[in-house]
């Protein structure tokens, strides 16, 4: 086992341990923090695969974006003495049983599958390449999804505003 493999095992262990902690802790903000560690370790895996751009995206979007939003909304809605409703033992066992069974089936299937692997040269992913793929309208181009995502974000914003909007408009103007 060399340095490289040790690193993978370390990252994988972080991901697994904290993933379990995310769903078992009884404090919501701790769950968010554990999720942060999971996402950071995933970014580490991308980095380990020498895919730095994806690693940075993972950190910026998930750790720096989504977890911050989760934590922010917890801060607005949740107080420190609140605890999540504890789950009965039978439910816990059931959930773990089903999740474990699902994981087992997936793992066995994936491990037994004979992936069509071939050694490939390391791709150089520079900004220019990424940019060109994003605006490419041909095969393997991502111009259309890129634009549709913008509509998706717009719709999500409108949806969020609809739910959060004040009921009375004439109350006060800040």
């Amino acid at each position, binding site marked *: 086992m060399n*340095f490289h493999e040790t690193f993978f095992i370390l990252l994988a262990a972080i991901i697994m341990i904290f993933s379990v902690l995310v769903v078992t802790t009884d404090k919501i903000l701790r769950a968010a923090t554990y999720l942060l560690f999971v996402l950071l370790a995933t970014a580490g895996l991308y980095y380990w695969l020498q895919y730095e751009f994806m690693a940075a*995206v993972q950190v910026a979007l998930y750790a720096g974006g989504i977890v911050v939003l989760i934590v922010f909304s917890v801060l607005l809605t949740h107080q420190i003495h609140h605890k999540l409703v504890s789950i009965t033992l039978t439910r816990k066992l059931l959930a773990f049983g089903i999740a474990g069974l699902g994981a087992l089936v997936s793992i066995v299937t994936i491990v037994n599958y004979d992936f069509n692997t071939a050694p490939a040269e390391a791709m150089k992913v520079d900004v220019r390449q990424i940019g060109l793929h994003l605006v490419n309208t041909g095969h393997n181009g991502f111009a259309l999804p890129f634009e549709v995502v913008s509509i998706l974000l717009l719709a999500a914003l409108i949806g969020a505003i609809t739910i959060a909007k004040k009921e009375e408009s004439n109350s006060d103007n800040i």
Partner: protein
Amino acid sequence: MYDFSQLTQAIHLFLVQHLNSSSVAIVELVLVGLLFLTMYAILGLTLVYMERKVCAFIQNRLGPNRVGPLGLLQTVADLIKLLFKELLMVKKADKFLFNLAPFIVVIASMMTIGALPFAKGFQAIDLNIGLFYIISITSLGVLGILLAGWSSNSKYSLLGALRSGAQIISYELSVSLSLLSIIMFTGSMQLSVIVESQANGWWIFKGHIPVFISFLIFLIASTAETNRGPFDIAEAESELTAGFHTEYSGIKFAFFFLAEYMNMFLSAALAATVFLGGWMPFHVSGFEGLNQVMDFIPPIVWFFGKTFTLIYVIMLFKWTFPRLRVDQLLTLEWKYLLPINLVNTIVIAFVVVMGWYF
């Protein structure tokens, strides 16, 4: 001349001769880690000293002048004091998160230093997405602040954290967008490439008006992103005691303090690297004599000279402008900086396509 990589290469060869590959990697990691940690600590102490001197200068005082010559050892004494102070623990605080928060903040600021090119070859890791890496890591720091505010179980901390969260999330956009302008010019996010591209002139001169606008926006937005005055509503002493770190004491408080100064250093260093040529000397194409003279000044002097000039400007901001209200702060970002920035980005795209830069 002044190429750091010769030195690092020599050390590397020496290690390779005597150790196997895994050990080489570990020894080098330790060496680099020690070097950067030391630098981090020294820079932090220097910045605190500088802040107090600048503040004193503006307020017509002398500032620290008792411990050591010119008060130079004052911050070291402060550090020792902080190290010996009792670590207070708030009852009913979430202990795990309370203790974790300062580390997130300080690690996030520490991780970014490694990607900065201090001089030619003096860079811990030259990622091909260096700029993006720095942007993404800095966005982690806010998590520490949010966690600190919530886990302290104190209203001041919570309010400070909420304000800080809203502020940092907003201003991050402007920071990233203004850096994007230079990425469009260079076509690369690798910091060493960005510095090399300024060998015949810094971007702030080569890219003229639009880059100057980006530079100004970056300076304003990064000041806000580091929670410094006049954008320091997150810790506004007069209303929130000390904001998100009200409940912290001793070395944990020092971590927040240190991280704030190092983030300021990072913003200044990033601005210097991206807009002002980093360690690149001041060159004017055509004036060979001048260029030769400039080349004699070591790159590391250039880098720190530019960075500390910018830090001085950021400190002037803090001590001269009044603090903004939270709504003014968000208005500034969302209604002024961001639209200007977006238009500016389009202008720059146009400039780049037409080749209207030097």
